[in-house]
């Protein structure tokens, strides 16, 4: 069941990521393109636990260089309370639009893991 959810999330995410990359807003009501400045502003907040650029490996995992689909599925699953035992991530991801989380996933996926 969880695999199925993951698959759906990834598939939907891929479509939306494509839409975003081609400049089509999936939320015209918001009338907001999630530009690089916004994405980087959000990503910088992550560094307070995940290290600068999401590079640090501790009990908290690094973000940089992970597959986009994986990061996206995780962030959205956190936001929807679909990760049993999750601690702070559901509370934090609920502070952002799905589109923002997808864009942040793409951003960290684009970084080289050092």
């Amino acid at each position, binding site marked *: 069941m969880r695999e199925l959810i993951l698959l759906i999330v990834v598939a939907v995410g891929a479509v939306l990521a494509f839409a975003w990359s081609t400049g089509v807003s999936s939320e015209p009501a918001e009338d907001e393109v999630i530009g690089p400045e916004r994405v980087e*502003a959000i990503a*910088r907040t992550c560094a307070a*636990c*995940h290290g600068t650029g999401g590079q640090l490996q501790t009990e908290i995992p690094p973000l940089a260089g992970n597959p986009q689909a994986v990061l996206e599925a995780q962030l959205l699953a956190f936001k929807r309370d679909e990760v049993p035992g999750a*601690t702070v991530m559901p509370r934090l991801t609920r*502070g952002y639009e799905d589109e923002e989380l997808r864009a942040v996933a793409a951003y960290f996926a*684009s970084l080289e893991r050092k």
Partner: protein
Amino acid sequence: MSNDGKSFIMPGTSITRRQALKRMGLFGFGGLAAASGLPVYAARPPAARVAVVGGGFGGATAAKYLKMLRPDLDVTLVEPARRYYTCPFTNLYLGGLRDFESLGHDYRELGETFGVRVVHERAEDVDVDGRRLKLSGGGELSWDRLVLSPGIDIRWGALEGYDEAAAEKAPHAWKAGPQTHLLRRQLEAMEDGGTFVLVAPENPFRCPPGPYERVSMIAHYLKTHKPRSKVLLLDAKDNFSKQGLFMEGWAEHYGDMIEWVGLSDDGRVIRVDADRLEVETEFGTIHRASLLNVVPPQKAGVIAHRAGVTDDSGWVPVEPETFQSRKVPGVYVIGDATQAAPMPKSGFVANNQGKVAAAAILADLDGREAPRPTWMNTCYSVIAPDWGITVANVYEVTDGELREVPGSGGVSPSGANAEFRRNEARFAEAWYAGITQDVWGSRPTG
């Protein structure tokens, strides 16, 4: 983070570190456009000068991110300490869970990797009209934009009987350093069967869950070494951060060792007698302590008052979008010194505010509108080894006001199982490693 001359900054920025240093060589003492009164443009700006006062969570972050985002900027960090000890996790040191040295961080990454000029002096005064900073060494520092991250100062005497001399007998230990060591020594010297009394202040103050984590860690120490002792928490408030979770954890780990007395039950202390280790409450109850720990009323660090950015509250009002002072343009204030409610005065928030201020300063220098800001906070508190709790929030600006993003945030679930609490205690350690890497470039220590 490696630094091999490749671009180490965000994608889309093409300046390498080597190029940046080259430019700094050419423009290192720049601010040429500013000095000549010409507007500063984005295309090929001479290095604008940003001075950052205070090398804690806010200031060190602002300095690092300014240089990371704009390597050719001329950034000077003014911080007296060569090694900075964090207030977060001093409670774990007091409880015996951490070595004090593990709380120390230096400025090598800022200087060597990012090219921040670090001046180990005290900022004595600010001339906001002349845009100069007066340093304790006698020199001056000119700036085009100023960032103040001065933390807190104690309002000596605001609580009757509690002055600097009293703090040598009844420590506050609300700044990491000699006061922390003093409290630990007193704890070691305290007799078994004694009473540890903590006096907690009204809001706002540095680290809202701090007093409650403090007594948790003290209780852990006492339970381990002096199990007949008591802990009494006298509070000027009726509610406190993560209250239910603290109460649950205290009952679980310490039975009735910790007694909390809130405002309505005459918990507000109005007078301290440090010589006798006694405190008097609002309605005249005298409590005698074996060890007295006073968390006193606070205000913004002294340099904020010198700069004229504080108001009658003693704290600093800021523009929420940028953390620029509402009173003095060109001066940005971050961290515990600010009025940023509903954000707490926490290291996590100061780190996030440093990044928002850095982005806003760069936009201002470019003549652009500041980017839409976002902030997070997570406050971990450790009640016992393997028993952590959290409050987490996301903040935004709506209609010119700071607020929590609706639907986000909250505290750990009440009644969660031991595994959940153990995970949050482990993540507390990991968070500390993460944020001190992000701020000072420290590497995790065992």
